[in-house]
């Protein structure tokens, strides 16, 4: 079985495979932020910090404790979620841009702390050995990516997800309806951090080397762009955003030094011409049903209306 999978992975050329895996890693990260920003409406500019916490916890688990890979990922996710809840508890009282700048500040603090700790090897970063698992890495990454998509899809349509959406639409009304704002916000923050921690663990083990400086403000912005570009709060949108923005720098590679220039201009153009994201306001279930010839569009509530964020 494992050999068979290995053969499939080996059939794709390594460069393409690397891009595919990078997309798979970006998906849980972006979905995590999608829960915090897209679903609950709390703007976070520090998602890379949770990713770095996950990456370093998982690296330390593998190097110091010799955990198997699956256990490593779960540990890094849980620890990151706990830290996310701990941080979320005080700062989620803030709203809007104050929250955004607080998460940003927190991310910078995490980065500087990791740059000064002995266990993270300070500014030199950690070299992470290849994971001990019988599955090839690309399959593993995409398995987790798909798991996280399914998880978030269930979450979104659950009672919990509806409460989060209510908070996003109107905090005061939600509170009046008996939703405990603080509790739900912290929980959504913790779940988002959990996914970020898992994504960070995958990132660390796939790349094999992590450095605190890699998880700066620009990384957070990268993840946020994925969520906004695809359309806030939409799972297919987030997945496509993650794929497009991970692959875009690769496709633009032929322009070598103009690459980032074009990337920046592209972000501006996309926002100016599609301000709600590529797939913002598109109803996927409806499209799918239409495609198979069943027009029960009316029975599905359309998710329209702009959020205030």
């Amino acid at each position, binding site marked *: 079985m494992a050999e068979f999978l290995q053969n499939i992975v080996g059939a794709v050329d390594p460069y393409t495979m690397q891009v595919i895996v990078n997309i798979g890693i970006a998906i849980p990260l972006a979905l995590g932020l999608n829960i915090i*920003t897209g679903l609950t409406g709390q*703007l976070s500019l520090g998602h890379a910090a949770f990713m770095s916490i996950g990456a370093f916890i998982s690296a330390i688990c593998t190097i110091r404790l010799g955990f198997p890979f699956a256990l490593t990922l779960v540990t890094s996710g849980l620890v990151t979620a706990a830290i996310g809840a701990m941080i979320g508890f*005080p*700062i989620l*009282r*803030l709203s809007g*841009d*104050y929250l*955004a*700048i*607080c998460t*940003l*500040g*927190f991310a*910078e*603090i995490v*980065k*500087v*702390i990791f*740059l*000064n700790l002995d266990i993270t090897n300070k500014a030199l970063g950690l070299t992470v050995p290849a994971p001990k698992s019988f599955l090839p890495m690309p399959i593993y990454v995409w398995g987790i990516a798909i798991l996280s998509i399914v998880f978030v899809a269930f979450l979104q349509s659950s009672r919990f997800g509806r409460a989060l959406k209510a908070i996003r639409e109107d905090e*005061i*009304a939600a509170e009046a309806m008996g939703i405990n704002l603080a509790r739900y916000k912290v929980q959504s923050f913790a779940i988002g951090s959990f996914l970020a921690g898992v994504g960070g663990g995958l990132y660390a083990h796939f790349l094999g080397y992590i450095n605190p400086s890699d998880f700066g*403000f*620009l990384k957070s*912005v990268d993840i*946020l*762009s994925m969520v*906004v*570009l695809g359309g*806030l709060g939409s799972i297919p949108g987030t997945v496509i955003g993650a794929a497009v923005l991970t692959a875009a720098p690769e496709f633009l590679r032929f322009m070598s*030094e*103009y*690459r*980032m*220039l074009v*990337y*920046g*201009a*592209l*972000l*501006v153009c996309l*926002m*100016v011409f599609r*301000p*709600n*994201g590529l797939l913002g306001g598109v109803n996927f279930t409806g499209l799918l049903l239409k495609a198979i010839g069943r027009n029960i569009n009316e029975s599905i509530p359309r998710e329209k209306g*702009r*959020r*205030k*964020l």
Partner: protein
Amino acid sequence: MFLQQLINGIALGSTYALIALGYTMVYGIITLINFAHGEIFMVGAFIGLLMVSVFKLNIFIAMALAMCVCMVLGVVIELIAYRRLRRSSRLSALISAIGVSIFLSSLALMVFGADAKGFPEGAFPLHQIHIGNADISTLQLTIIGIAAFLMLGLEFIVQKTKIGKAMRATSEDYAAAALMGINVNRVISFTFALGSALAAAGGVLVGLLYNAVSFNMGLMAGLKAFAAAVLGGIGSIPGAMLGGVLLGVTEIFGVAIGYSSYRDAIAFAILVLVLLFKPTGLLGQKIQKKV
């Protein structure tokens, strides 16, 4: 020792304050975190450097020119990247701003290269003045002087002139200001021009202070200046000044007592702490949420 560090801190802090003013004014009017502002600061520094090293101009004339160029740059950025997004969600405008910021910094990387450039020898007549046991350079005094002068000028424009009155009205209530016959687009362009000019002045001053201008100087300076703006209460002009100086001074003192490797975290740690106890910043006004 104390006086020395205090002067160092105020000099650094007043450059933060100059950048923070641009953030706070733009935020006050269109509630957008203008992430491209740090890059305008960087472009200002480069233009000042170009004027001094290539065209051999006096540093003060160079600074004035840099301010003019950045004024135009700020207005153009607003026109292209933000104007159409004014009615859409604030996150889209934020991403657009980040796009502009990536664009400008990679443009600077291409044009000027990756290594930091210094101002030519003698660009600024540097002298040391001894006050007590402190060594204070004329450069630091000039920085504090210019920053104070520009902030007073800004305060004058905002409080005493007609366009300043229009700015205040627009930030109070955008729709009502437009109904009263204020050309809101012009006011917003003017705000961007003012903020960008101040950032450019800050860029030239920081370039002189560290004698280094590089393509990535905008990011950290921009983030810290934004932290300063929030610390003082975003939207409040005196708040930005206070926040900038406060961050500069604490940062320098933090380094002086031996936390130099935590330098970048100090500013943000103060920010987080202040926001936890006073969620609207030091001088910010509490806005009552209405149903």
